[in-house]
Structures are given as C-alpha cells and as structure tokens.
C-alpha cells in the first residue's frame, strides 16, 4: 500500500515490537481481514479444535433431529420391548428366538451382557424395561443440551449485564455488585437445587411437569452461577474503559449507551463466547448430578444424568447400559471443552502465528 506521492513517505513499516519471539511484521497494511477472519484461519489450523467443533455440531443436530432419527433408526424412546428380556433378571437373551430352556438356571451363558445390540436396536435394549437405548440417548441429548444451553444463556446474560455495569459505572455500584458476587459464590448450589426442586409449586409461571423441572434447574444454575462470568466481564470493561478510543468517543459527544453498546460490548463478545463454551459442559454435569440425586426430570423422559444413575445399579451385569450414556456425556463435555480451548487460543491476540 503506498501513500499518495505528494506526502513522500518511506515505505511504511508497521511497528512491531522487536520482541524475541515475534518476527518484525513484514506484511504491509495489505490484509483487510477482520480479527474474526484471522481467528478463523488460526482455528482452521488447530486440528483438535476443528474435530471437537464438528462433534459439537453433530451433537446439536442429533438433539434437534432426535424424533426423526428415533423414528428412522429405532423405536420411540418409551416403547417397551420386554419380549427380548428374561423376566426374572431383566437381562436380554443372547438369542431371543430360543430363550433359556425351561428349568435351566438363567446363568450368563444364555444372557447377553452386551444388551442384544442388533441391527434392530443399534445400542441394544435397556434391562427390565426393554426400551431402545439408542433413541433414549438421542432424546436424552435433547434434555441435557437444552438445560445446558438455557442455563448458560441465563448465566451469561446476567453476568454480562452486571459485569458491564460494575466495570463501567465504578464507584458504589461496583462495590455493591462485587459484594453480591462474593455472596452468590458462597451458596452451596447443589444443596439448594435439591431443596428448590421439591418446593416449587406446579403451574408457577404457567409451567408444569417437565417444563417446570427444566425451568427450575435452568433458573438455579443461571441465577447462582453468574458471578463467574461477571467477574471476567467486569475486568475487561475496567481495562476497556481506560482505552483512548472510549475517551475519543466521549469527546465526540457519544452517550453512555452508545459507548457501552457500540464501543465496549463488541470487544467483550470474544471472551464471553469463549467462556460460554467452557460453561456448557459444567452445566451438563450439573444436570447429571441433580438426576443422580433423584431430583432431575420426571420419568419416563430420559436425560443422560438420569439414565446414568439408573444404569449404575446394573453396571456389573449389564455394563453396556452404563457405558453408552457415560460415553455420551464424556464425549459431549470433552468436545465442548476442547472447542472452547481452541476458540480461546484462536482469539488470543498474543498467540504467535
């Protein structure tokens, strides 16, 4: 890019601090990629982040299309197939056509420890009830991801708003919000979740049954976890507020609202986005913990946490029943974590190319 002739300039060398690791930035002012485009290029180079990104997208699709997939692959999640199961042990037969010969002891040679995985039932069948495991995991994804996304949304929204106000306004407002952060962090979240779920009356805010249960869990996670993100947003806002382009905007006569939403908020989007992807897995685990403690979603709707806690009692006689939901949680949480890390490194200005 050369400057017009009448202002002779030596070829403009964009200053790049001559630090040890970074080479002087040889490139002229030629690239017009936005920060996001640069981050996208970096992300594309990070194989781990890309793979986990793909997995995340697949999971979300699976959750959304669960009814279709269930119908196409297997069976509705609550349909019983008890003919495949031996009545007393509830374990699937190895060969359903000629089950245990009468009078013989239902020992393991007749029973299939791996849940009669077949073309009909891709991941086999649940013991005792005989419901199709594949479709239950699909529907479970719906609940788990729904709870995780909604609660992260509430948490991020609340945290961002309060974080910005505390960071930008400063003074006593900042002290009040910061004190509130300490208080909220002190709450034994898991214990209150259990207490609250049992107490919220049916039909509050027009929600009933599972809708209410999900509403309560989302409220608890969102309402009690916002300080984690508020603290980050407050820190960022404090440093952004001192930046000269904010002073410049103010000198142009821009209102506080303009400065907040046009100048400061765009710069907060990346840290918030990165943190949100790391918050989703934590919320998936929280829902699982609640179901384990017997407080989660009403039966027969499956959620991964509930399936895991039910499966735990059959873990030695029907290991498949615990492995598949456990694997589902593990893969999702891992994918989100790795994707979040990849995102953070891509957007981190310091990471050298």
């Amino acid at each position: 890019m050369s400057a017009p002739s009448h202002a002779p300039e030596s070829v403009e060398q964009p200053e790049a601090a001559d630090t040890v690791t970074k080479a002087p930035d040889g490139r002229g002012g030629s690239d017009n990629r936005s920060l996001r485009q640069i981050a996208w290029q970096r992300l594309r180079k990070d194989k781990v982040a890309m793979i986990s990104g793909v997995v995340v997208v697949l999971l979300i699709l699976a959750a959304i299309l669960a009814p279709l997939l269930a119908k196409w692959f297997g069976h509705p999640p609550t349909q019983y197939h008890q003919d495949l199961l031996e009545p007393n042990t509830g374990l699937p037969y190895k060969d359903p056509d000629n089950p245990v010969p009468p009078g013989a002891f239902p020992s393991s040679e007749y029973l299939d420890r791996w849940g009669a995985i077949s073309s009909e039932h891709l991941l086999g069948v649940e013991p005792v009830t005989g419901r199709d495991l594949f479709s239950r995991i699909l529907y479970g994804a719906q609940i788990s991801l729904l709870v995780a996304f909604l609660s992260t949304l509430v948490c991020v929204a609340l945290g961002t708003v309060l974080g910005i106000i505390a960071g930008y306004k400063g003074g006593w407002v900042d002290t009040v919000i910061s004190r509130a952060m300490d208080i909220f962090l002190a709450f034994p979240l898991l214990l209150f979740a259990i207490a609250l779920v049992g107490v919220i009356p049916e039909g509050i805010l027009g929600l009933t049954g599972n809708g209410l249960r999900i509403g309560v869990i989302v409220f608890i996670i969102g309402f009690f976890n916002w300080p984690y993100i508020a603290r980050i947003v407050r820190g960022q806002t404090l440093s952004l507020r001192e930046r000269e382009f904010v002073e410049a905007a103010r000198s142009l006569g821009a209102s506080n609202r303009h400065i907040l939403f046009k100048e400061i908020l765009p710069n907060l989007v990346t840290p918030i986005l990165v943190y949100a992807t790391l918050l989703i897995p934590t919320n998936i685990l929280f829902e699982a913990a609640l179901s384990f403690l017997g407080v989660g979603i009403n039966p027969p709707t499956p959620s991964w946490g509930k399936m895991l806690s039910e499966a735990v009692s059959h873990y030695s006689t029907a290991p498949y029943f615990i492995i598949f939901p456990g694997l589902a949680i593990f893969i999702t949480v891992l994918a989100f974590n790795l994707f979040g890390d990849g995102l953070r490194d891509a957007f981190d200005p310091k990471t050298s190319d």
Partner: protein
Amino acid sequence: MPPPLTEMLNYILRRLGAGLLLLAVVTAVTFWIFFVLPKWAGVTPRGMAALYVGKAPTPEALDATVERLGLDQPVVVQFFNFVKDLIFGTEYVFGRETVECAAPCLGYSFTTNSPVLEQLLSRLPVTVSLALGAAVIWLIGGVAVGVLSAVRKGSLFDRLAMGTALVGVSLPIYFTGLLALAFVVHSWKLLPVPRYVPLAEDPGAWFTAMILPWITLAFLHAAQYARQTRAGMLEVLGEDYIRTARAKGLSERKVIFKHALRPALTPILTIFGLDVGLVLGGAVLTEKVFSLKGIGAYAIDAIIGKDLPVVLGVTLLGAVFIVICNLVVDLLYPLVDPRVRIAA
C-alpha cells in the same frame, strides 16, 4: 516496609464486616427457601409438621409438633429467634429435662433431636481431612501439569496432560468414584474399604482410607488448576523481567521455578482459597459415593428430609469456611505480591 499496623487492622475489619454481611444474607436466603417458598406453594404448617412426625400422625400430634418446632410463627420471628439463639444460646425442654444450648446454639435436629452443633463438629474432621487432602493433591498435581505443559507448549506432553486433565472435568464424580471403588477396592483389592479413621488414632489407616476419595475429588478440580497455571505461566514467560533473568545468565530451570512460577501462581491463590472454602462446606457427592460420614452427606440427608436446623447449620458452616478462606487469602496476598500492599 510493611504498611503501618493500623492500616492492616482496618483492612481486616473491613473484610470481616463483608464476611458477616455474607453470613447474614446466606442465612436469610436459606430461611426464605425453606419457610417462605413452601408457604407460597400452599403448604400449611400442619403439612410441614407431618414431615417430622412418624406414620399416620393424629391431628393432635401434628398440632403439638407445629407448636414445639414453632412452624406456625411468621418467618421474621423464626429468623430473629435463630439469630438470637446463635448469639446468646437458649434452653430446650425435653420431657421434664431442660437442656442448656451454649452460645453458638444451632438448635436441635427436627428428626433426630440431637444437637446440630455437636453433630456438625463430630462430622467436621471427615470433611476437613477429605477437603484438605484433596486440595493438596489437586494444587500440586494441577500446578505441576500446568507448568510442564506451559514449558513444553504444543508438545505431545502438553496435549496429553491437558487431555487427561479434561477427562477429570468431563466425567461426573459419582461415575469416577464408583468405578474407582469397584475396581481398586473390591476387585483388585489394592486398598481397604474406605472407612474413616481419625488421624490421631491411626495415621496409616487414615491415609489408606482417604487416599481414594482424595484422588477422585482432586481429579475433578485438577483440570481447572492445570489450565489456570498453564495460562498464567505462558503470560509471565512473555514478561520483560523473565528476559532480564535470562540475560543475567540464569539457567532455564531457575528462570522457570524462581522467577516465573511465583507471579504465575499469585492469581491461583485467590481461586484456591474459594475452592477450599466451598469443599470444606461438604463435598456432597464424594462423601455420598464413598459413604464418608462428613458434612456433605449430613447436608444431603437433612435437605431431603427437610431437617431445617441442620440445613441452616450446614449452610452457615459452609459460609463461615468461605469467609475464613477469603480472609486468609486476602492476608496472604500482600506477602506474596508486595505491589498489592499500597493499595491494601
């Protein structure tokens, strides 16, 4: 030159003030959830009392319980009584016997009629040894992994270490705890059944009993510390004073452990203080999975059975631990980072 003593004293008083405020609010919210919310949900005092009376209670027994436990009084009065008893202690009448409940009186459990404070204190050692043991492991483990993967950024070790740390975060604790118990204790018989033995009595048994719960609980937190240390180290290694240290001719090992580690660990001090505070309040799931009779297990039973004095006691104890840990961190901080001293 440490700041004048009065300033430190003022600082501590201010932090204690904030702590007391925290305790008051936490207790108030607990009261709100257990007393006000049920009322909104349309639960009558009798309905609440039915919880603490045995099977098929007669209406008279229900009314007697309502009166004995003061369930019909307005919430504000109950809250006031709770705080009054906490500060001045009170007397309880059991049958013909009146029992004195000393100053930090947390009252008597609705279901077991045993004094809450005594129960909490008897269960405290279990949770404390679980929390501190796990805290030591996740701090050392997390920091070690974080430092090594920062130093060897992008290497196989870095990816692997972060991967295993992530596994810890990705699996629910009752899953890892369960598998650990099933394999390590029951099938491979490497460790005895984790049964709590007070440290004073038999340190050896105490250690072998607690090592498995420690590792399981630590595994959960280690990932966060590894990631935090790694980020901290990477940032510090880019600072000028590290380049100065190298220019002085220091070996790479000294540069990392003497010059880079300390500033990188300073921010970790704050989150460590908070995490220990939270875990001291009772590692609910770990205690449940390993059948450790700690405060977490006590809290779960109390919440399920709506044993309000116990729930209040546990929540208050948890909040006290958090206040203490935050205070300790605030006092340690100036020692670790002298720059903070002026702004103290």
